[in-house]
């Protein structure tokens, strides 16, 4: 069907072979849509899970095959046409549909269009970043190269102390490498967690033998014979390295949206129905900038979230919207990160908190940080404390209170506190 001479304006074209794209296609079918669905991506692989790339995959505990979302039979049975290795470079559309042109010249017609184009690693213009052994991590090719290089590397330097950087650092350290993390900010994971959680991760990684430099000013990457040899800091010192991972965040891919004339502002601007500014095209996942979906703070400001859960839930809403059904992206955002034997689970969005309460002793490596605003709980970072995570997530869903004054007593489960408190009226 993809080789038809002229592109018919039928069915749904989903651009982006990813978590959100697969979910959107599957949800369209679940909602009863019988029109053609084409899911198209640049990579050579059918859609696969990305979170394990910085974790299990590097340890050899996951393979390209084990990461695939669905079997070929699933896509065939559901008449979802998976197109790999095609990069869409141009789209035109009106209210009834349009055409997307790939770099190869192939043309894909559509009646409905979804952008699940994701994000790309933020590149930093550093001298020496073209040297062998310097990598970014976003896709399977990156991860495979990293895994190969890790086998022989002795000195690993990670530029960027965010989730990806710390996950890779923890894995490399556990396999006996000398590991240095260089973070430009005064604390780790500063974009996602509070100071208490940052401080814990700083100590926990140092306890495991990783060197962490905060306020680090990286001036260049140095090398010999085309391969990396070290990373130079502002004071002229050089951290030896035979492998450098740069993990300094991602940039949403907005070029197609811009070409379509859609509103773009730190991502593709969507409403709570995942609809972009043209009123027809939908967008979901890492590329979308949306009204705050958090139940406790619904519609207050705009956010762009980089998480599996957001991709999945927003894609479901986008599918419904494409079919003219009413659905709203309203949820309790949550996130996770596995670093060494530390399981971090985050429920809710902590931005705007006016109180932070510590539950448990960080030195025990099992504790939670609870965030409150005007006395009501809005989020929690839970370290090796799944029960706290689950309970806070539930409370944020139902609007039940977890009184800040009572949570410091770890002998009482949050669940018990929850049961004792009547549900609060939420705005």
């Amino acid at each position, binding site marked *: 069907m993809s080789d038809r001479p002229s592109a018919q304006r039928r069915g749904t074209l989903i651009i982006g072979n990813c978590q959100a794209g697969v979910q959107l296609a*599957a949800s369209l079918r*679940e909602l009863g849509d019988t029109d053609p669905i084409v899911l198209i991506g640049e990579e050579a692989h059918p859609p696969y*899970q990305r*979170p*394990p790339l910085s*974790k299990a995959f590097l340890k050899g505990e996951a393979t390209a095959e*084990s990461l*695939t*979302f*669905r*079997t070929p*039979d*699933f896509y065939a*049975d*559901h008449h979802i046409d998976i197109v790999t290795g095609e990069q869409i470079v141009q789209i035109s559309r009106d209210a009834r549909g349009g055409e997307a042109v790939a770099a190869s010249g192939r043309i894909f017609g559509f009646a409905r269009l979804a952008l699940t184009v994701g994000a790309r690693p933020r590149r930093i213009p550093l001298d020496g970043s073209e040297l062998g052994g310097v990598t970014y991590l976003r896709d399977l090719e990156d991860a495979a190269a990293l895994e190969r290089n890790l086998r022989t590397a002795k000195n690993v330097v990670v530029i960027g102390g965010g989730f990806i950087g710390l996950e890779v650092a923890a894995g490399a350290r556990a396999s006996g490498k000398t590991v240095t993390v260089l973070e430009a900010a005064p604390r780790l994971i500063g974009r996602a967690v509070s100071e208490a959680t940052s401080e814990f991760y700083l100590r926990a990684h140092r306890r495991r033998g990783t060197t962490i430099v905060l306020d680090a000013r990286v001036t260049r990457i140095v090398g010999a014979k085309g391969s990396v040899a070290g990373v130079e800091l502002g004071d002229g010192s050089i951290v030896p390295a035979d492998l450098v991972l740069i993990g300094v965040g991602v940039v949403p891919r907005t070029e197609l949206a811009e070409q379509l004339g859609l509103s773009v502002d730190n991502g593709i601007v969507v409403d709570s129905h995942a609809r972009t500014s043209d009123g027809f095209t939908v967008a979901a996942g890492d590329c979308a900038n949306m009204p705050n979906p958090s139940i406790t703070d619904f519609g207050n400001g705009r956010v762009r979230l980089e998480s*599996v*859960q957001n991709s*999945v839930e927003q894609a479901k809403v986008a599918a419904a919207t494409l079919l003219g059904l009413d659905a709203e992206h309203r949820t309790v955002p*949550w996130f*996770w990160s*596995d670093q060494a034997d530390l*399981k971090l*689970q985050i429920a809710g969005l902590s931005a705007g908190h006016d109180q932070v309460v510590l539950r448990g002793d960080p030195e025990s490596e099992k504790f939670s940080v609870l965030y409150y605003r005007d006395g009501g709980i809005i989020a929690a970072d839970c370290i090796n404390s*799944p*029960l706290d*995570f*689950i*309970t806070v*997530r*539930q409370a944020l869903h139902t609007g039940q209170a977890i009184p800040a004054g009572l949570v410091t007593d770890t002998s009482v489960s949050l*669940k018990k506190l929850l049961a004792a408190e009547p549900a609060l009226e939420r705005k």
Partner: protein
Amino acid sequence: MPTITYIAQDDSEVTLDAQAGDSVMETAVRNGVPGIVAECGGSLSCATCHVFLCADSTAAFPPMEELEDDMLDGTAVDRQENSRLSCQLSLSDGVVARVRTPETQV
């Protein structure tokens, strides 16, 4: 080859041949069995792959560990005696097992 049957709320059944070593969750998700969400991909972080293990299948899997036990307190449909997180149910070769999926996972 392990064989796993998923029984939905309406008693409809899906039976699949699985790969030895895969979990009940992975097998369901890859084949698009409704009723199992598995947002975290099996890292014991989300409690959205909750199943009820049928009585004839208890012996096919090792008992649960503490983390799974804790997470089961947070499932969307309240846990029962036979509740498990299907990401923790690894299928050994030759196993024939049956699970029921709950009404909802989120």
